[in-house]
């Protein structure tokens, strides 16, 4: 039991937090701009490396520079939209063109990271942490508590924003019914910028958390794309809180299939990304609206 919680469940939840912070941006951008943003993983990489640069420059622990890294990555998101997607005419019939453009942006962001930081694996901090012991048997690493705690705070703040603020409601309205949102007086620009700012900020948090949990590499975000899309579809596309919950399911499922349920690990850890692939394929066949109420485009 203790081993199950310590080595599998907690890791799965932490992974779910990382996926969730990225999947929220993907689902929001899909809901409001109607395209799959394949550069989102590399935006997470960018956020993680922006935080690394800030750590190097300031000498502060990474969690201290996280807010600034989130702000800068939010600006990066809005800037990428302004420079690459908007000129192609988002919201018109050219969705596939913008999807392809997002692959190009993914390559550019990754190459920029490699150009400035090299291709070697780096970490925010050397040394290792001693686990905190709970009830004598459950060991949780402090960094895992930070990741889970901060993710809960960020998702709760997002939920309150979407539920109660004027701009948050306008974002949900634009995602639900763009024509009616405009008829009601919602200007598209504000909502689109808000989606990029929120998506970018949370992407930075997700990238930094992954870097804290493991290490940083220029491929780190790209490898998250599949599980994040699975999470976004699982939560009902266009539904940010659903995406966060979907990510938790995907993250935990990926870890639990490697648990030795019957003596041997069910699946070798090397194949665990097959889980999100299976979830995605299964959902698209049997339940394309996701588990919660989402919409199909």
């Amino acid at each position, binding site marked *: 039991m203790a081993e199950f919680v310590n080595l599998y469940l907690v890791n799965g939840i932490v992974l779910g937090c990382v996926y969730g912070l990225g999947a929220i941006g993907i689902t929001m951008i899909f809901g409001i701009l109607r395209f799959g943003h394949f550069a989102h993983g590399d935006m997470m990489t960018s956020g993680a490396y922006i935080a690394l640069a800030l750590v190097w420059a300031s000498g502060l622990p990474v969690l201290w520079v996280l807010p600034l890294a989130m702000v800068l990555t939010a600006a990066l998101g809005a800037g990428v939209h302004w420079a690459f997607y908007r000129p192609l005419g988002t919201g018109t019939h050219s969705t596939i063109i913008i999807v392809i453009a997002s692959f190009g942006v993914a390559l550019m962001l990754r190459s920029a990271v490699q150009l400035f930081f090299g291709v070697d694996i780096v970490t925010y901090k050397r040394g290792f942490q001693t686990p905190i012991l709970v009830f004598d048997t459950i060991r949780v690493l402090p960094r895992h508590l930070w990741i889970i705690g901060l993710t809960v705070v960020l998702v709760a703040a997002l939920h309150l924003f979407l539920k109660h603020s004027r701009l948050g409601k306008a974002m949900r309205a634009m995602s639900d019914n763009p024509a009616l949102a*405009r008829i*009601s007086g919602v200007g598209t620009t504000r909502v689109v910028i808000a989606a990029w700012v929120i998506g970018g900020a949370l992407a930075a948090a997700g990238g930094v958390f992954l870097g804290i949990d493991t290490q940083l590499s220029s491929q780190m975000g790209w490898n998250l794309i599949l599980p994040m899309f699975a999470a976004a579809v699982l939560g009902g596309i266009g*539904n940010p809180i659903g995406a966060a919950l979907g990510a938790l399911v995907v993250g935990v499922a990926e870890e639990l299939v490697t648990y030795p349920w019957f003596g041997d690990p069910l699946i070798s850890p090397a194949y665990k990304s097959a889980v999100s692939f299976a979830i995605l394929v299964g959902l698209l066949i049997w339940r394309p609206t996701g588990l919660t109420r989402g919409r199909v485009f």
Partner: protein
Amino acid sequence: MTPLLDARGLFAGYGGLDILRGCNLTVAPREMVVIVGPNGAGKSTAMKALFGLVKIRDGRVTFNAADITNARPESLAPRGLAYVPQEGNVFATMTVEENLDMGAYTRRGGIAEAKARIFDLLPALALKRRHAAGELSGGQRQMVAIGRALMMEPKLLMLDEPSAGLSPKVLTEILDAIAAINAAGVAILMVEQNAKAALAIAHRGYVLAGGTNRFEGPGPELLANREVAASFLGG
């Protein structure tokens, strides 16, 4: 009296094909005007063109003496023009109350009072305020759509087939609600398939066919007109 809404010689359509061909529409303050006509006459296109959702190729629209030809749709609600489209006229994933909040998006202050007035006018909504609009019946959804449009206290409410898909009993309720809104001083421009029921409560009607005006006049007069009845109102 100067008209509230004045559309002159509208040409508009989709992809190079004009559906409206020289259509004229006017609505005076506090007036209720109904547009009837056969399928494909351009009734819905006229509504969309007035609201900036279909590009006007030629012609001019003024509202409250200001030119609103091809205005951005989001700029019209603050001017006092509201529109309830025929389809997709509620935010299905949002609650009834949130739909009303969206109606007041560009409003500053007085939102709670406006909401209270709408719940007074459409009491069925008050009971469902925390329900998702997509879960409501067709008639209730239409009430939500109208409620959302009224949140800005518009001078003119445009309705595209408010009775579509509703039972005769619910149709009567909706038309009664619309008559009450008009009696409270809101001008109405309504497209309606149920020509007889709609013309009976309207001050004036237009018969549109082939994208242009065929007949116009007071509601009872159009109903009594044999030619109109034979050609457009199903005998």
